[in-house]
């Protein structure tokens, strides 16, 4: 049986197991004798091992097996030995690395060191995700007419491109080429950190390449999204899927009624049928939008581990409280928010919390009448508007006259100024400055706003607010949706719009 088709599913589930394991380990550090957590942890490792073994991923299986055996001992003894979480967390890190290897389609990394108990090098949380800007290019290559073995040539080029980035789509693709399809033209969608000039030079270096042309996908983004999406899978609840199938069936019936009424010039019937069709469409639209929603907790899974590591690195006491994880938000919005959220939590621990006190960071999702709120709060030292204003003036970001006229709220917003965040003196005094401009930009791009509430000594709350658009079907619950998401769905690609009209 070809297991490769299950790879995507394996990756998704394996990531879920690893996130869960990280959470449980952090929990066990606080309560090493939590029998339920020990048993749950063992089950996670066991499932992961079985999955990896079925897929034939040897290194992943070995590491997961090692974790499983260790956990079986703990479970049987009824407690996690003190200080032992580190080794297991290192194992979780290693497994995450192995998943990355699978995604990148490279050989699984060496695991021997971990298995004999050597420490696994781990990136610090600060340096965790250096985002390399990746561009998607649509490249078209033409081979000279006298090219020998053009399919082999195209295959070589395609293989080379695989080493330079992620080939999202190729026309013809490798399989077609392997069958020896005559090919003078190769079209590739490539996601890569390379610049266009470097990429072009590389391609022109190949024998027989006569023409290289680019269509930069940055602006439109539609092709980019389309190919990116074909690579991803979405899990949809069966009942939702059935509901959509049923609704589209009803729409088809409705179309027949419309056609008959139009033929008969029966305006009354036509009007009624149009009304019914409209309601069905709204209903269907609503159901389709549902498939885009995920709970907030789908991106907060890594936060417990982050807070633990940060607390340990800074010698502070920090407890994370997650509230309202069930609040539903748009899938893409959540994906885009994962990084800013980590940023806010990192800031709260690093700059907000005070050493020697019982620090607490809260991440809460909440639904309001017209907005979804995501709030990151801490009980740390808080922000001092006067100090912030003074620093902004010193940094030349603000005139003294303007500074005097600032309200407290405006003074707090100063931390979102790009030039402000880089000033080390400011972060020492007030914290919350690191990368706030990036957080704010991201949130605003997603159609949201950032609110900051704080006063000296009273902690800090940063609230991300996303407006909602109510989408409701006849006789259905009202389900709020982020406006940005609804807008994206309401303005479909032309071909989809055509099919609907």
């Amino acid at each position, binding site marked *: 049986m070809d297991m490769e088709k299950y790879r995507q599913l394996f990756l998704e589930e394996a990531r879920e197991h690893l996130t869960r394991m990280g959470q449980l380990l952090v929990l066990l550090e606080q309560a090493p004798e939590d029998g339920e957590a020990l048993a749950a942890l063992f089950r996670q490792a066991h499932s992961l091992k079985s999955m990896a073994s079925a897929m034939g991923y040897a290194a992943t299986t070995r590491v997961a097996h090692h974790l499983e055996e260790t956990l079986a001992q703990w479970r049987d003894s009824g407690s996690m030995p003190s200080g032992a979480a580190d080794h297991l967390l290192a194992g979780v890190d290693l497994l995450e690395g192995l998943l990355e290897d699978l995604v990148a389609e490279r050989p699984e990394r060496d695991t021997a060191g971990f298995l004999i108990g050597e420490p696994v090098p781990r990136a610090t949380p600060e340096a965790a995700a250096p985002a390399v800007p990746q561009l998607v290019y649509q490249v078209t290559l033409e081979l000279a007419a006298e090219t*020998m*073995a*053009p*399919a*082999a040539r195209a*295959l*070589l080029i395609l*293989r*080379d491109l695989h080493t330079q980035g992620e080939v999202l789509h190729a026309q013809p693709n490798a399989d077609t*080429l*392997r069958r*020896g399809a005559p090919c003078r033209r190769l079209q590739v969608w490539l996601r890569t950190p390379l610049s266009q000039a470097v990429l072009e030079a590389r391609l022109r*270096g*190949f*024998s027989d390449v006569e023409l290289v042309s680019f269509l930069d996908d940055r602006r439109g983004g539609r092709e980019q999204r389309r190919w990116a999406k074909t690579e991803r899978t979405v899990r949809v609840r069966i009942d939702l899927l059935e509901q959509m199938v049923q609704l589209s069936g009803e729409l088809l019936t409705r179309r027949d009624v419309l056609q008959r009424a139009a033929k008969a010039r029966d305006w009354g019937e036509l009007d009624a049928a149009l009304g019914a069709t409209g309601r069905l469409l709204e209903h269907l639209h609503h159901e389709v939008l549902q498939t885009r929603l995920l709970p907030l907790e789908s991106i907060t899974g890594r936060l417990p581990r982050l807070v633990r590591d940060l607390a340990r690195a800074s010698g502070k006491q920090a407890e994370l409280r997650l509230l309202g994880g069930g609040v539903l938000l748009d899938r893409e919005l959540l994906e885009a928010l994962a990084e800013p959220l980590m940023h806010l939590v990192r800031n709260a621990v690093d700059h907000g919390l005070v050493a020697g006190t019982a620090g607490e960071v809260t991440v809460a999702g909440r639904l309001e009448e017209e907005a979804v709120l995501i709030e990151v709060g801490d009980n740390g030292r808080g922000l001092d508007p006067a100090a912030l204003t003074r620093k902004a003036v010193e940094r030349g970001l603000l005139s003294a006259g303007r500074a005097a006229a600032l309200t407290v709220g405006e003074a707090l917003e100063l931390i979102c100024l790009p030039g402000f965040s880089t000033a080390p003196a400011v972060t020492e005094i007030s914290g919350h400055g690191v990368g706030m401009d990036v957080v704010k930009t991201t949130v605003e791009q997603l159609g949201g706003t950032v609110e900051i509430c704080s006063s000296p000594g009273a902690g800090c709350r940063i609230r991300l607010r996303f407006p909602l658009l109510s989408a409701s079907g006849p006789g259905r619950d009202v389900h709020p949706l982020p406006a940005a998401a609804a807008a994206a769905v309401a303005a479909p690609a032309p071909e989809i719009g055509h099919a609907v009209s």
Partner: protein
Amino acid sequence: MSLRVMIVDDALFMRNILRDIFLRAGFEVVAEADNGEEVLPLYRQVAPDLVTLDIIMPKRSGLEALRELMAADPAARVVMVSALGQDALVLEAVDAGARDFIVKPFKEEKVLEVVRRVTAQD
């Protein structure tokens, strides 16, 4: 350090042509073989930077030798040498891991261009 090349071709004539091209370019020709059977033992012995491999040879074909070589050293840099009309074989070779190919009759610049790119790749 100059590039160390190994030439495999059953025709002495072709080996000489390739050897002259490589020597003129300042490369070192560290081994030559005229059949597929010798490829792997010789490769292990001299560990060249690059192998040119004729696709059709007596005893063991170039394709078989290539597969053997790639199994022993997946990082081996092999350039196939083929004749006109052997597209299917070339394709098979590329799929089996050959880094590039040249087609007889070839021009000196073409050979050097391919060799230089293959050795610059990693």
